[in-house]
């Protein structure tokens, strides 16, 4: 589903739990979950290559913030980017086709899982160098203000990304530009406790991550990333504020990834099974579903229907990807630059 309209958020205010959009969000998060499970299966089958990083367990962080945006706002993220694409309304089939390296993929199969990109729906990538995209997000925010729009940027990154230089340079520049009302960007720390196998205590001298952001005069707050009501609540307020002021804001979403860092992270020697189990008790989808059942009388059959739909959507996406043709060979040489593109080695030869 596409990003919600402004009204919806006010609706949410009017009726916190039972507005139709919460059901939509449950549907969206369920789709993300089923989609990610499908990617893991297809990876094991060898249909998906390279690295694969899924969002399972963190769904509320994607859906809770993105649903608070306008159609024309834009999003940057790291390589853990499937959920954001789905939340922004990208076609599941095209996403899966991208993961399959097919010509029908979002980026014609040239980017893959780490580089999902769908400008039409506001997704400006999908980047693989940890922290490398934060500066891009700050620059994009400047551009949107410079052009006189009220569009804003949301930039997702992990706890581990906070230790690299480009995070620091991006934050300080965003802070400075924010003083001029020229940097409407919301930085979302996807604090899932680990940078690959390194826990926060072991990678960050100061473990209170949002406190670190104060060094840039950027207001920041923590939110329970497993509770979409909490995430969306903060997001509605922050989105409004950032849109009004043109100043950056940082939200630390405390969450947890239920799967390994990537599909290759099977042993997970850095965390105990029990720890994972404990966190699975706070499944963001279950939290939303239970609330809707208890408070709004969402029926089990509706939940079941929703889940069947999501499973079918994921299956449809896989089928579409499966049946799509491979990337066109000539694509190899396209999109390198707009002009003066590459000369194929063979043609560069002299007889």
């Amino acid at each position, binding site marked *: 589903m596409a990003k919600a309209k402004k009204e919806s958020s006010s609706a949410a205010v009017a009726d916190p739990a039972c507005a139709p959009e919460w059901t939509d969000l449950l549907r969206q998060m369920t789709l993300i979950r089923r989609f990610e499970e499908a990617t893991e299966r297809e990876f094991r089958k060898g249909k998906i290559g390279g690295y694969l990083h899924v969002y399972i367990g963190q769904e509320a962080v994607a859906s809770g913030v993105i649903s608070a945006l306008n159609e024309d706002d834009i999003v940057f993220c790291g390589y853990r980017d499937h959920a954001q694409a789905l939340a922004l309304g990208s076609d599941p089939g095209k996403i899966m086709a991208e993961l399959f390296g097919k010509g029908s993929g979002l*980026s014609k199969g040239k980017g893959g899982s780490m580089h999902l*990109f769908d400008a039409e729906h506001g997704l400006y990538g999908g980047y693989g160098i940890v922290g490398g995209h934060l500066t891009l997000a700050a*620059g994009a925010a400047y551009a949107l203000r410079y052009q006189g729009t009220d569009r804003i940027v949301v930039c997702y990154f992990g706890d581990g990304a906070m230790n690299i230089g480009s995070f620091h*340079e*991006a934050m300080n520049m965003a802070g400075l530009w924010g003083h001029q009302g020229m940097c409407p960007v919301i930085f979302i720390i996807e604090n899932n406790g680990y940078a690959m196998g390194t826990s926060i205590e072991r990678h960050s001298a100061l473990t209170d991550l949002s406190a670190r952001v104060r060094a840039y005069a950027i207001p920041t707050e923590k939110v329970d990333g497993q509770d979409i009501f909490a995430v969306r609540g903060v997001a509605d307020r922050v989105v409004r504020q950032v849109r009004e002021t043109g100043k950056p804001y940082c939200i630390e979403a405390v969450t947890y990834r239920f799967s390994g860092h990537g599909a290759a992270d099977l042993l997970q020697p850095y965390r105990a099974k029990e720890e994972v189990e404990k966190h699975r008790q706070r499944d963001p989808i279950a939290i939303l579903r239970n609330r809707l059942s208890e408070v709004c009388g969402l029926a089990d059959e509706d939940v079941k229907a929703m889940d069947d739909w999501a499973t079918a959507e994921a299956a449809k996406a896989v089928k579409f990807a499966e049946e799509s043709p491979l990337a066109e060979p000539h694509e190899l040489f396209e999109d390198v630059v707009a002009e003066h593109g590459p000369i194929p080695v063979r043609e560069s030869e002299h007889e």
Partner: protein
Amino acid sequence: MSEKSYRDAIRDAMMEEMDRDTNVLIMGEDIGVYEGTFRITAGMLKKYGPKRVIDTPIAEAGMAGTAVGMAMLGLRPIVEMMTMNFAIVAADQILNHAAKVRYFSGGQVDVPMVIRGPQGAGVQLSAQHSQSFESFYAHFPGIHVVAPGTPSDAKGMLKTAIRGKDPVIFLESAALYGMKGEVPDDPDFTVPFGKSRVAREGSDVTIVSYSRMMQLSLAVAEKLSKDEGIECEVIDLRTLRPLDMEPVYASVAKTHRAVVVQEQWKPFGAAAEIAASITEACFDDLDAPVYRVTGEDVPMPYARNLELLATPHEEHIVRGVKKVMYAE
């Protein structure tokens, strides 16, 4: 036509484009209030204001990365690196982001941005501040790399860079900033990328170079013509990526001899690509192996006398010409 310095030609190109298109802006360290350490941006803050002439913190990665984001959203940022040596700090943002986002997005965005600044040795700035980066960047697809050697090219190529759709590494020669030359007044005068130029015609030896070394080669060519009647054809590559070797091949077909001149270290330097390409294309035409004139393979020393020994001078080019003529 009017006479302009290389420095003023660069400033004119930027200001004319900023007048023409409000999407063009410039950012860098001390380019505004300070007016630029090389005064390239003198007067620009006053004229365009702080939203379009952005003084940045010392954060080259931040400058380059934010420029990528701006460019993806439709602006045309120019990033002034105080010197290109500092851009190494931004290598990831340039090589892994600016140069690749068009490709891995399947062509969903243009990335019209220019990273420009001076490079090269010669004024005792020692090891960290005297480097040249043409081969460093030109190996990577996804960007254009240019190194103009005249005021006219500086202006025309910078305009092409600003009006383009891709990241451009615009390498200026600090040593040429003061150099004067005729520059067309037409505000739409541009010089296309990927077009080498015959800077001087000659029938005996082809000298291939760019930027300051091209100027040095021209001086040597005049000297050799006057003193020894040796006529060198000097080719100014102007663009390193994409390389336009056709005029070089045509010249070598005529002269059968080639010398490539590059300021910096020989191993894996730009001259290697040029020499290798010439040999691939003109093997049967060549009467001698292509000779590479380069700087010594050492970090740049501070001491004036050592620095002079580390960089190529006229006599080195002369020597190269004699060598390919088997006259030495």
